[in-house]
């Protein structure tokens, strides 16, 4: 399928680049509906990978790139379930989202995240699957999971560790603070910072440049320089599920869902 219009996202091919556009109010939170459409996208990506030299992931939401997992849905769905059922459902969700993330990470084309606004939690993790991150100057990146008694669960820690120094990983993970695009570029996370609202345009310009290069060489270079940390990704799922059984997590989720605080994402 060359184009797809779903409830939470769409994709199309433009100038030899596949463009995946997230579009679910308020800020592309990843719940079961988004996951199902991301799975469809991953299948289409595998089928059409010979026809495109690049993939650009962006957001149609002015609020930001993606605010991460849909915690309200997670809380609602797990209410009334016993621990085994909750864990089973969670494990299944994580396995599925990891398959999608791994497929994007390993795609035999150059992948670019065009980030506007916030890329928090799972949104940050989605951006980290890409080879390049182009961020507009209002972008912010954050792993707020410790607030809930959890760690990032969509592959964030191994992928962040792959890209930047361990001290930066500890800073982001252990403080839960968000960093802006300028800081993100300074630590090596972001490839290019653009003016406000220009991330997608610059990502497209970058994709056009990539088109000039021999496709097989670009794929070989990517495979050589960007190993996928499969073992650590598996460990992350296990640690996440183990932490999820702690009473602090349910309390943290409840607090978040019921919060009227103006800054509910703060640790």
């Amino acid at each position: 399928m060359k184009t797809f219009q779903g409830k939470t996202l769409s994709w199309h091919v433009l100038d030899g680049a596949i463009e995946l556009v997230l579009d679910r109010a308020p800020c592309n939170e990843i719940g079961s509906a988004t996951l199902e459409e991301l799975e469809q996208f991953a299948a289409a990506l595998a089928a059409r990978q010979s026809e495109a030299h690049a993939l650009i992931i962006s957001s149609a939401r002015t609020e930001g790139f993606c605010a991460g997992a849909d915690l309200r849905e997670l809380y609602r769905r797990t209410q009334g379930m016993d621990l085994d059922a909750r864990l089973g459902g969670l494990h299944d969700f994580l396995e599925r989202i990891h398959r999608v993330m791994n497929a994007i990470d390993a795609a035999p084309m150059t992948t670019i995240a065009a980030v506007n606004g916030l890329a928090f939690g799972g949104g940050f993790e989605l951006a980290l699957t890409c080879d390049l991150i182009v961020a507009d100057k209002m972008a912010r990146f954050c792993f707020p999971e410790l607030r809930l008694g959890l760690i990032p669960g969509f592959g964030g820690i191994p992928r962040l560790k792959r890209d930047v120094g361990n001290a930066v990983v500890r800073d982001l993970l252990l403080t839960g603070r968000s960093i802006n695009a300028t800081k993100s570029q300074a630590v090596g996370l972001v490839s290019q910072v653009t003016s406000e609202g220009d991330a997608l345009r610059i990502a497209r310009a970058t994709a056009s440049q990539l088109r000039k290069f021999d496709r097989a060489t670009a794929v070989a270079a990517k495979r050589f320089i960007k190993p996928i940390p499969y073992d650590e990704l598996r460990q992350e799922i296990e640690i996440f599920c183990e932490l999820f059984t702690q009473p602090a997590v349910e309390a943290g989720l409840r607090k978040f869902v019921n919060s009227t605080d103006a800054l509910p994402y703060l640790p």
Partner: protein
Amino acid sequence: MSSLQNTTNEVLRLAAEHFKVPREQLSADDDFFKTLGINSLQTLDLLTRIEQHFQIELPDYELQGVSDFRTLAERIQSRL
């Protein structure tokens, strides 16, 4: 180094500019959530503007419990 008064005035100017409200409607002791009617995402935008303008890093947790422009300016001042 800027004085706290200068920093407060700059924060008020930035907020007025970013959220498109008349500067004269804002004062240092205003609760910016109420006065500007902003949510958490918009607060992050203001944080980014502040970091860019003052060329500082202001971790989000420094904003915890802060709701008026003067206290926000004090947090900024300690990073200048």
